[in-house]
């Protein structure tokens, strides 16, 4: 069999199409970000200041760190709505650990372990008991927020002076550690999603769980791991939240899960699973954060900001879908 023939019989556009539509997604997001920058620079006072750019990075970290894990979860065909309460709960739990005199590094490790353990509850329910992840994480959402509020009576749990915690909020060469951690974790997740058996298995599970199982992928274990990772990332966010606020707060991070899911979806990851990229999510996180920051700087009525955010999420996803379709169509012509 000659290679010639092999080439001829294949639907030739297919591979390029795949590359192209991926392209389209990220290009259209990139264009959106450039447009946002231009608009806000000309209209919003102080937008381009170094300080504000750092703020944007810091805000991006809150959404981003959780969004990296959420991207994998959504690619695997699941969903996690428990992020906000998880972050708040961890910040509270960590504050108590520190109050009890647990050494700070150990407390951080414990916080991450607690986060991973809580996350894996939803994972186990999904993997071994067929409870849809929406239901499992919805249960966590309610239970964790309730527990945190119950333990603290909605009052902040102060940790007093703590050098290590404070250090996490002190900029390094002007850049806040939260942003650095976010970017490091981004690199890790981008690498894992593309270059490890775990990452590729996630795509396979999202694309066809039955086929993934029959290929010998340990579907159940990977599902549990995914939710444990999401819990651990929420714990990292919780640690950073504690360092930023100087106390554990049960009411913090409310609605974070919506921002996270919105960022992932705006980034082009399909809610139906099997498709998505970390780079897309990074761009999605930037879009969401930029909008939040710019609208505040512009002094838009805070209630009206909600309207704009809602519209922009829909428009971003709509534009993305249309761009991909048009990309496919142009390829065809």
């Amino acid at each position: 069999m000659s290679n010639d023939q092999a080439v001829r019989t294949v639907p030739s556009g297919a591979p390029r199409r795949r590359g192209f539509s991926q392209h389209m997604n990220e290009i259209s997001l990139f264009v959106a970000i450039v447009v946002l920058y231009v608009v806000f620079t000309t209209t919003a006072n102080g937008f381009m200041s170094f300080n504000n750019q750092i703020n944007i990075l810091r805000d991006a970290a809150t959404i981003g760190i959780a969004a990296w894990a959420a991207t994998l979860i959504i690619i695997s065909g699941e969903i996690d709505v428990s992020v906000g309460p998880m972050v708040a709960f961890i910040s509270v739990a960590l504050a108590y650990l520190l109050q009890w005199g647990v050494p700070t590094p150990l407390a951080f490790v414990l916080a991450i372990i607690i986060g991973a353990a809580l996350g894996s509850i939803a994972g186990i329910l999904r993997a071994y008991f067929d409870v849809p992840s929406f239901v499992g994480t919805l249960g966590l959402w309610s239970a964790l927020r309730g527990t945190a509020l119950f333990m603290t009576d909605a009052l902040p749990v102060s940790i007093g002076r703590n050098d290590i915690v404070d250090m996490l909020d002190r900029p390094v060469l002007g850049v806040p550690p939260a942003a650095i951690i976010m970017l490091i974790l981004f690199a890790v997740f981008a690498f894992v999603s593309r270059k490890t058996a775990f990452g590729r298995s996630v795509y396979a599970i999202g694309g066809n769980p039955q086929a993934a199982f029959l290929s010998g992928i340990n579907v159940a274990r990977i599902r549990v791991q995914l939710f444990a990772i999401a819990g651990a990332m929420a714990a990292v966010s919780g640690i950073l939240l504690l360092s930023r606020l100087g106390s554990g707060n049960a009411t913090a991070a409310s609605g974070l899960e919506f921002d996270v899911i919105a960022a992932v979806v705006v980034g082009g990851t399909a809610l139906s699973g099997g498709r998505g990229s970390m780079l897309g999510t990074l761009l999605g996180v930037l879009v969401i954060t930029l909008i939040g920051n710019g609208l505040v700087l512009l002094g838009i009525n805070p209630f009206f900001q909600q309207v704009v955010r809602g519209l922009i999420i829909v428009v971003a996803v709509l534009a993305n879908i249309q761009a991909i379709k048009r990309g496919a169509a142009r390829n065809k012509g």
Partner: protein
Amino acid sequence: AQDKDLKVGAIYMDAQGFYAGVRKGIQDGAKDAGRKLEVIETNAQGDVSKESSFIDSLISAGVQAIIVSPVSADGSFRAIRRAHDAGIPVVCYNTCLSENDMKDYVSAYAVGDPYQFGHKLGDAAADYFLAEKKDAPTIAVLNCEFVEVCVTRRKGFEEALFAKVPNAKIVDNQEGATLDKAVSVASTMLSSHPDLDAFFGEAGGATLGAARAVKSQGRVGKTVVFGGDMTTEIAQELADFSVIKAVVDISGQGLGKLALTQAINSIDGKPPADIKVAYDIDLYKSAEDGKGWLEAHADGIP
């Protein structure tokens, strides 16, 4: 500096009508001072993390002062410290930081002390029970205690009440901050406490919700309501005087105006000597008071 433009950041704690009053007060305050005002306003939605990031944005936006009702004494102080460190005067209203932090980082606090707020109402409630000759009334609380002020309000209320009516009893305390939740929870409480004498609503939604529940459950004349925060509808209920017997209120407009005045003074380098600038807490305890409020607030903004 009288005619220079003003650029001020304002942060409202959550989505309650009270803050609409604050906003109007800030605008009016600027008009009164003859200044052209640009306000950059945001709503923290009761979330310290959002508040913190908003304050950072306001610092970047180059505001001259920040007017804020901190969500939490301990949770908000770092962000406020950052503003202070950036040389931006911070004016608290409604709520503020702890005494020590306040001295260090806040230039003025337009205070309608929540303890006093609760205390005045508790006092009024006690007077009512004594007049009605109920020496052991049962009271249920509809709370908004996911924010700190509400806890303080209840403390003030309880202490004033127990001082005069030592046998009074708080029999239940449930969340009911939004009107619809408050109606549902209050109705349910009336089922479990058929002899309930009074509700204490810690905020506007709770107060009105309790009143609506009392009416819809046919308990008018048996159960009364004491509560905080004036709105048009609460004032109407008070004017009716069948259910709501006393309302305590800090005028949002007044407080907003006061906060802006303090902000202007701080920008001009003339912060108040005593950080706390008290604002009157009003008690309305008759039908006439209710009607008076309605006349004074025809636009409905508290």
